[in-house]
C-alpha cells in the first residue's frame, strides 16, 4: 500500500486516539440493540459488529482520503450488522432502529430500492446512526440471511463493485440475486400464510367447527389450548387428590392418527366416547395406591388404551401405543400385558 499523505495520516492519528471511545460506543450500541430485540421477541440470525481495523481504514483513506475532512466524516468506522430470517423483519428492525438512534437520513441508503430493472446486486438497508452520548456516527446494515449469503459470496469473488466484474459472471450473479430475492419473498409469504392458517384454525376451534379442521401438529396444539381433557384429568386426579403436572401431548398425535382420527372433530368424539371408561381404568389402577401426582397426559393416555382395547387392538395395540409415547422398548411388551390384565375386569372389556 502506498504511503498516506499528511492529511490522511492526521485522520489515522485521530482514529488511534478514538479507539477507546469507539469500543465504548460499540458496547453501548450492541447492548441497546440486544435489549430491544429481546423486548420485541424478534428472532434474528446474527447481530454482529466490528471496528474498522487500522489496515482497512488506511486502505480506504488511500483510495478516497481527500473526501474526508476528519475521522467523524467516515460513517462506517463502527459497523453493525443484523441478519434476519425474513425480509419483513428487516423493515421491523429498521423501525426499531429509528426509535433507538438518531438516523442521518441524508447518508442512509435503502439499497434494496436503488436497483433499476437491469441493475446488479442484492443489497441491504444501510442506516447511518448516532447514539446519544457519542459524536461519531456508525453504520447499521440490515439484511436477510439470503442477502447476507449473496453479499458474502459476491465479496469472496474479490470484485469490489459490479463495474469490475466480467459481464458473464455479473450476469450469473445477477440471476442468483433474482432467485434469492424470490426465495426471500416466498419465505415471508409462507410465514404470513402459516400465521393466517393458525389464526383460522383457532377461530374454527373456538367456534366448535371441529370437523372442518384436519388433524395435524398445529391444529392439535390449538385444540389442546381449549382444554378438552381438563375435566377428565381433574376427575382422575380427584381419585387420590393428586396434583397434575403438565406434560407434552404431541406424542399422541401419531397414536390418534393410527386410531383413524382425521379431523379435530374425530378427536373430540373419541374423547367424549371413551372418557368415562378412561376414568374407570384410572380409578381401577390408582384407587389402591397412594400415588398423589399424575401428569396431564393421563387422560388422553387412558382414552387411547380404552379405545384400542374396545376396538380389538389387544395387547399388540397397547404395545404400539407405549412405543409411540415412551419410545420403543422391550419392556413395553410387559407393560401392555399388565395393562391388558388390569383392564380385563372393567365393563368395556366384558364383551371382548
Amino acid at each position, binding site marked *: 500500500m502506498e504511503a498516506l499523505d499528511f492529511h490522511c495520516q492526521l485522520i489515522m492519528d485521530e482514529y488511534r486516539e478514538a479507539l477507546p471511545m469507539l469500543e465504548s460506543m460499540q458496547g453501548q450500541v450492541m447492548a441497546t440493540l440486544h435489549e430491544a430485540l429481546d423486548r420485541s421477541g424478534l428472532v434474528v440470525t446474527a447481530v454482529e459488529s466490528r471496528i474498522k481495523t487500522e489496515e482497512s481504514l488506511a486502505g480506504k483513506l488511500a483510495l478516497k482520503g481527500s473526501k474526508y475532512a476528519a475521522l467523524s466524516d467516515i460513517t462506517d468506522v463502527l459497523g453493525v450488522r443484523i441478519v434476519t430470517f425474513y425480509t419483513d423483519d428487516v423493515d421491523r428492525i429498521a423501525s426499531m432502529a429509528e426509535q433507538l438512534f438518531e438516523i442521518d437520513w441524508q447518508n442512509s441508503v435503502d439499497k434494496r430500492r436503488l436497483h433499476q430493472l437491469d441493475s446488479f446486486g442484492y443489497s441491504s438497508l444501510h442506516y447511518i446512526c448516532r447514539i446519544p452520548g457519542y459524536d461519531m456516527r456508525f453504520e447499521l446494515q440490515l439484511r436477510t440471511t439470503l442477502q447476507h449469503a449473496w453479499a458474502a459470496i459476491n465479496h469472496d469473488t474479490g470484485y469490489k463493485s459490479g463495474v469490475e466484474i466480467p459481464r458473464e459472471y455479473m450476469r450469473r450473479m445477477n440471476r442468483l440475486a433474482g432467485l434469492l430475492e424470490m426465495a426471500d419473498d416466498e419465505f415471508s409469504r409462507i410465514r404470513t400464510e402459516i400465521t393466517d392458517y393458525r389464526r383460522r384454525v383457532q377461530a374454527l376451534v373456538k367456534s366448535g367447527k371441529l370437523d372442518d379442521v384436519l388433524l395435524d401438529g398445529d391444529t392439535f396444539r390449538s385444540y389442546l389450548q381449549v382444554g378438552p381433557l381438563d375435566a377428565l384429568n381433574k376427575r382422575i386426579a380427584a381419585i387420590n387428590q*393428586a396434583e397434575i*403436572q403438565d*406434560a*407434552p*401431548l404431541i*406424542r399422541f398425535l401419531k397414536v390418534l392418527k393410527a386410531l383413524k382420527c382425521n379431523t379435530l372433530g374425530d378427536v373430540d368424539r373419541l374423547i367424549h366416547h371413551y372418557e368415562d371408561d378412561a376414568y374407570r381404568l*384410572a380409578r381401577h*389402577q*390408582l384407587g389402591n*395406591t*397412594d*400415588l*398423589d*401426582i*399424575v*401428569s*396431564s*397426559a*393421563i*387422560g388422553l*393416555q387412558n382414552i387411547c388404551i380404552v379405545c384400542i382395547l374396545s376396538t380389538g387392538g389387544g395387547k399388540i395395540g397397547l404395545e404400539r401405543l*407405549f412405543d409411540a*409415547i*415412551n*419410545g420403543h*422398548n422391550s*419392556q413395553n411388551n*410387559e*407393560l401392555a400385558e*399388565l*395393562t391388558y390384565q388390569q383392564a380385563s375386569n372393567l365393563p368395556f372389556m366384558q364383551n371382548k
Partner: protein
Amino acid sequence: MTTTITESGNQLIAQFIGRLDTAAAVQTAEDVKPLMEAANREIILDCSRLEYISSSGLRIFLSVRKEAATHGSKVIVRDINADIRQVFMMTGFISLFEIQ
C-alpha cells in the same frame, strides 16, 4: 436408600439403591442437588437397583427434569423394574420422561 452420583464423559449418573419412599425422599432430594446445577449434560437416573418409588420420589425425578431443562441438560431414566414402570404408566409419567 442410598444415592451415588458419578461422572462419565458428558454424563452425570445418579444411581438409586433401595426404596425411594416418603421417608427417604428428604435425604434423596438433598443428594440429587448436584444434578440440578449441571449444565448441558446428559443426566442418567440409574434405577437398576431401585426397588420402589412413591409420589415423593416421582416429585424428585420431576424436579431434576425441570431444573435440568432450564440448564440445557437432558434426563434419561434407565433400567426401571416392572413395578416402577407400572407406576410411571398409571400416573402418565411415561410421557414426561425418556425411559430406556
